[in-house]
């Protein structure tokens, strides 16, 4: 699937959270990674290992202390970079959806298109309806987020992100807050996106999904990349002790 053109290049990034009165937390320690065009990178690791921080660094939601992140040739950390502009290219789907609560499903998808991309209402509606159909909830366009199930809300969030035609999509434990019966549907949707050639970075505890959809798996612990490789390599033949321990606990 991947064609060797890197969309995301991460070099040596570090991030330390300093809170007064507490020891500093080294959330990212010299993390280096990359994502090629069309590639699906799955990031796994225990809670608190820095997966979310890594993902949030990729669209500048979490500013980093040092190192460099380049998105499709644009240096994210350069002071000259327009972060808002860059975020149009980096979609993000959150664990808790973060849908606009005061907008209907369709408006959640059309508003950013009109505001950010300056699309006309007609065009935005067309894109919005097509994407709602694609994520399987075409009949819910007039529902508010509070009227939708978690799985439905997450589909709207994915559609909202897709509407911006990003170059890469980030998924942060997007099924962790869902009722068990809706998890499978959202994972299937993500597999479809992957099969369509979407460049994706996915943080997940769903090892079945990782095995099936990932081109590459990265295992993180204590803010470091411990091990990475193909799904078969990491899951069936983990080299590092910590990877083995983590997998034995989760599987």
């Amino acid at each position: 699937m991947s064609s060797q053109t890197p969309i995301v290049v991460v070099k040596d990034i570090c991030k330390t959270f300093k809170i007064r009165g507490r020891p500093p937390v080294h959330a990212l320690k010299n993390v280096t990674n990359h994502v090629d065009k069309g590639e699906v990178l799955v990031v796994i690791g225990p809670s608190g290992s820095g997966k979310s921080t890594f993902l949030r660094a990729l669209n500048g939601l979490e500013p980093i202390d040092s190192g460099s992140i380049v998105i499709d040739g644009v240096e994210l950390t350069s002071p000259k970079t327009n972060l808002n502009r860059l975020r149009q290219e980096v979609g993000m789907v959150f664990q808790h959806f973060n849908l606009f609560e005061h907008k209907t499903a369709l408006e959640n998808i059309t508003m950013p298109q009109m505001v950010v991309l300056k699309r006309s209402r007609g065009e935005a509606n067309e894109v919005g309806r097509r994407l709602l159909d694609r994520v399987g909830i075409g009949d819910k366009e007039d529902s508010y987020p509070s009227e939708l199930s978690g799985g439905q809300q997450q589909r709207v969030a994915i559609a909202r992100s897709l509407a911006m035609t990003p170059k890469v999509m980030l998924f942060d434990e997007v099924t962790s807050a869902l009722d068990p019966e809706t998890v499978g549907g959202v994972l299937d949707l993500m597999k479809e996106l992957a099969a369509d050639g979407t460049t994706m970075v996915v943080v997940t505890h769903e090892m079945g999904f990782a095995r099936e959809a990932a081109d590459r798996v990265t295992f993180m612990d204590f803010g470091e990349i411990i091990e990475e490789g193909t799904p078969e390599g990491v899951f069936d033949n983990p080299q590092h002790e910590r990877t083995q321990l983590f997998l034995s606990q989760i599987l």
Partner: protein
Amino acid sequence: MDWILDFYNYRVVAQYLPEFARGLGSTAWISLLALAMSLVIGTIAAIMRMSPNPLLWRIAAGYVQAIRSTPLLIQIYLIYFTLPALPLLDRRLDELEGGIIALGLNAGAYMSEIIRAGIESISRGQVEGAMSVGMTYPQRMRYVVLPQAFARVAPPLLGQTAVLIKDSALVSFIGVFELFGAGLVILNERLMPNEAFLTVAACYLAIYTVMLSVTGYAQRRLGGAAA
């Protein structure tokens, strides 16, 4: 039934209907303009108050403190008499302008505290959702944060608006004709305090009732299903 005419002579009130209509219109108009001004100032002050820039938030905090700690009547006099004496304006403010500006500035301070509470009640996730699609700070405020914040604090904003409408009676002290002034006309010409002030009170109540239904509508429009 004679006692009713003694207590409240509606025939006399009917004669003064033009005055009351003019007063009602004036109060409604003054309140509306002052309200619009207070919401704009209140929003700007609330955003400045939350700014990381100490100069900006100190200015906003100072403004709120100054308004809260001084009587409105004195603020009205200061705006009307003292402000034009500064070499900032090349003309006097007329009574209506002075009154509206003073009321708007006064209410703006209280509105800003309410609006700030509203903004702070919007979850970080809403902002991050907006950031993740590339919205700029003003876009996030305009399309995501403020509509939800206003819907959430609509009840206290409405309460503050009621205060503003009632306070607008004070601009009669600088010679603006409004509801209270209309009441004073009956009082002075006929010496009928009941007819004067029961009617005035009823008019304030009428304005408030209209306000209530407008706010209910606005809250539903802004807040989506949650409101």
